Structures are given as C-alpha cells and as structure tokens.
C-alpha cells in the first residue's frame, strides 16, 4: 500500500509543480486581486449576467458601444482567480474593437485555452496569453470562458438585430 506522504516539521516538501506556476502567473493573480474595469458601467448599451451553475461563479458584463465600436467595457461578479482575471483582461482587450473584432478575439482565446500554441505569438491576445496555462486544466476552461460567453451572447444578440459593427 502506498502511504500518505510523510511530513517532518520544518522540511515540508512544497515544491510547486510547473503546471501550477504556469496557471497562476503573477499577472493573473494581479488581475484577480486588483481587477481592472470592475464596477457598474453607466450608459451601458449591452449588459448580460451569466453564471456557472456548477460552481456558483457569476459575471455581469456591460458594454457601451458607440458607432459600432466598444467604447467601454466593465464587469461585476464573483468567482475564482481564473474567471475574474479573464473578465478583467477581457474588458481591457475589447475596448476600441468592433463587436465583430471582439468576437474574433473570443474565438482565438477559446482556441488558446484548448491548447493552440500558435496563438501564443498572436499580439492581439495580449496579456490573455498568460491564461494559456489553463489548457493543462480542462475542468477550469469553463472558468476562463465565463466572461467570454457573456460577450458572445451579447454579440449574438446584436447580430440578430442586424446591428453588429
């Protein structure tokens, strides 16, 4: 029988696996603890709240679209470091883009999370590339995509109305 790991006080083995260091990069923890663009967005033209019923994470994404361009994006919500960092980064990356361009970014980000390494050199993704480590943790991909699912819902709604930029 394999014994549980022994522990001698003072010599605790807590070597951090590289997969964890790649998942929890400093920039991700920084977005988690100091999220950008978090709060209510006055004059929002688009807003949607989505949750992950399995874990209770909730993100509300708000956009102010002017002349076909996302002038501002903000979010509210609660969740793990991955879902909140991803939401925080999203709000920074989509500003100045058309909804169509934002949805293209969403597609690229989804591919990145599913292990498409070529996208690591895609500057359009910016600091979102630090979330590539999530690809090693398939059960956490849904965390990283929660805010992006909001964006896609908003984009779909706009397409249906024929108002996509």
């Amino acid at each position, binding site marked *: 029988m394999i*014994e549980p790991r022994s*522990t001698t006080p003072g010599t605790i083995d807590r070597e951090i696996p590289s997969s964890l260091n790649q998942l929890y990069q400093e920039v991700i923890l920084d977005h988690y603890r100091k999220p950008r663009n978090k709060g209510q967005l006055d004059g929002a033209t688009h807003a949607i709240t989505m949750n992950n019923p399995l874990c209770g994470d909730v993100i509300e994404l708000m956009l102010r679209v002017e002349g076909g361009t996302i002038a501002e994006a903000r979010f509210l919500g609660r969740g793990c470091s991955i879902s909140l960092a991803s939401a925080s980064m999203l709000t920074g990356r989509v500003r100045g883009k058309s909804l169509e361009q934002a949805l293209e970014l969403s597609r690229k980000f989804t591919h990145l999370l599913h292990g498409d390494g070529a996208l690591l050199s895609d500057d359009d993704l910016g600091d979102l590339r630090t979330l590539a480590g999530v690809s090693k943790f398939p059960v956490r991909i849904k965390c990283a995509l929660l805010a992006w699912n909001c964006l896609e819902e908003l984009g779909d709604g706009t397409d249906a109305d024929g108002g996509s930029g």
Partner: protein
Amino acid sequence: MAEMTDTKQATGILASERPREAAGSRDAGEASEEGGWDLAAIRAQFPILSREVHGHPLAYLDNAASSQQPLRVLRRVERYLREEHANVHRGVHQLSAEATEAYEGARRSVAAHAGTRDPAEIVFTRGTTEAVNLVASSWGDASIGAGDEIVLTKMEHHSNLVPWQLLAGRTGCKLRFVDVTPEGTLDLDDYDRLLEGRPRLVACTHVSNSLGTVNPVREIVDRAHAAGALTLIDGAQAAPHMLTDVAKIGCDFYAFSSHKMCGPTGVGALWARRELLEEMPPYQGGGEMISDVKLERSSWAKVPHKFEAGTPNISGVVGFGEAARFLADLGSEAIASHEDTLKRAVFERLDEIEGLHLYGPREGRTAVFSFTYGDIHPHDLSTILDQRGIAIRAGHHCNQPLMDHYGISSTARASFYFYNSPREVDVLCDGLAMAAEVFGGIA
C-alpha cells in the same frame, strides 16, 4: 442462500487481502495507537486508495460527495453478475430464485442498518434524492393541499428542498425554513415558532452535508409530532457514519444513499413506517408493483414492491446490502471513534493556519469540514490541492441557500471517512501551505 456464503467474510478483513508491504507500514503502527483499529488493513480493502494522482499518493477527502467501495462490495457485485443474475420476483428457475434471494437479502441487511426489524419498510430507490421525491409525490400529492405548510431548514441539500418546491408548485402549499445559527446549528426557538403554524410535515437533514452539523433529530421529531406533523429525515450524510435507529429517532420517513456508505451509485433506500407505506399511493406504475392488472385498472403489490416499479438496479442493491454488512462488521462505535481522531487532528492542525476559516460547530458534528482560506477561491484551492493528489470539493455543495446565509458563494470542503488517516490531515495542511505560496501569500 446467496447471503450465507458472505458470512465467511463477516469479520471484514481477510488476512489474504492484506498486502504484505502494509504489514510494517507506519499506518499499521498508527493503528495500534488507536486500540485495534487496523487502518492499514482497512485501507487495503479499498484498492482505489492505493493509486497515485499527479505523482502523489491519493488523499481522498471527498467522501461526503461519494465514498469508495471495498473489495467485499466489488466482489459481491461481481459474483452476483457472474453467477446469480436473472430478473427478480418473477422467474421459477434457479437463477431467478438466487437473484431474488440476493436482492431480498440485501433488503434485510439495509433494514438492519436503518434499525428496523421489518424489511418491508425498506423501499429501494435510485438514492436519497429519489426517496425524497417519492415521498413528495406519493404522500405529498395525496395529503397536501393549498395553504398547508411544510417546514424545512436553511441547511437542506437541494435534494431535500427542490422536491418540496415542486410539490408547492403543484399544490399551493407553503414552505417555511428553520433558521441556522452563526455556529451552524439549527435555531430551535425559530423551529418552535414555525411549528405554531401547524405544518403537515417537517423535513430535515440528519447531518449537514457542508457544515457537518449533527442535528438533534429525536428532539426535532418529538416537537413535530407534538404539533401534529409527520417527519422526514434526510440521512444521506448520517447513514455512512452511524447505525441509524429509526425507532429511536421516531421519524416517519428516513432516506439514505448507498454510494456514500461504501456501496455502488444509483441505489438508495427510503425507510417509512409500514402503515404509511400501505396508505400511500404508488409512486410509479409498471411491472413489479402490481398485484392484478386489467385494461382499465390495476391493484397494487404489497409494500415495499408497490413502490418498486420496473426491474430494479439488482446488482446495485446487492452491493448496497454488502456495504451495509461491511459497515456493521466494522462497527459504528469503532467508525465513530476513528472519525473522532480525525476530527481532533483537523481542529488541531487547521486551527493553526492563519487566514483559514472553518465553518460549522466544534462539537456534535461529523468529519466534513467546509472552509475558506484567505482570498484564495475554493476552486483555485481545489486545483492546487489536486496537483498534490488531494481530492476535495469546491463549490456550493448543493447548499446555495446556506451559502447565501453565510454571505459566501462557495467553500472548500474536506470530508473524511473511516479509511482516512490522520496523516492525510498533515498532507492537506502541506497542500494548503503550497496554495498560499502559489498565491504569493494569503490576503
């Protein structure tokens, strides 16, 4: 007949099943400190406990979600499938007789676990959830009307909440909820106030699946009866840890699951007083549950078969029965004593950790511990611990209203069972220390 052969294994652990390398292990040494609880031999009964996860020995601390199955159960199910399988209750041939005996033998074992002498009071279901749904549909639809009240608590698992919400939707009855104190126990003064509304039913969990609180079910049942209400106790988190005595509790319905007490998934039991079962209309219609069928109407089989429509999960039930016998052989006092050791270890070690908040009472609880750790989200904790082979649960544990009550959206939950080692508490603490390091400290 099929049951008799199992008595050969009645002492629990066969010497031949002990791996040799375990004989001199530290787990074995640890067991001798506990006066006869041979943890190494017990762990050897559970092959899955020997596996590694991410290069580390598995520390399985998600027992409140589902427990592991010992060789005895795995072998009993295999033997049933290899040698005894046929449909139950209908064939004249030998295999059908053996399958029926295995199935009904399991009912006797599960009845003994629940503390009833009448196996006919045990209805096999898919699990606790279906047992509660059965009562809500059968008894509820027949007995509950608009304006009637049902008292639940704020610590119910969704499985003892949503079926009553559905009943309320069908009948217009009202649901009332007993408050939970900051310590995580039921507010019995609030309960008394709710009883003044003369509810028809009180449905309450025996043990909270996220706080570990052992509720004073005898007291709850007595007060309910005095107010004229029937009582349903959700025993999903209690039956694995203690021999249930429905007679002592005095309740009217008791529900529990196989897979949380070393048995297979997809099977559980509803215990109910025989006269209630006899009065209640069938839950589902089909084969097995009838006595006589005409084109326009049918009459029902006797209890419990009236509530077991269709071919049941026979192999699952056979495994469930073996699991009940396994627990009986271990002895609920020995199980409780070892779990006390684990609880002490948890309090001793986790209390020391700065930024760690344990939920639930200090006394009168089982070894299921919900906690938060600084600003590290429970999902992140779970991911990090998993990399050390430690399986814990993160989330709302099907307890969303309780999480709302504490103003949180989720917790991490480490739930221990009799095969866990105090050393696994140390492993958990090391994992938490690593999590703090990954997050660059605890904020």
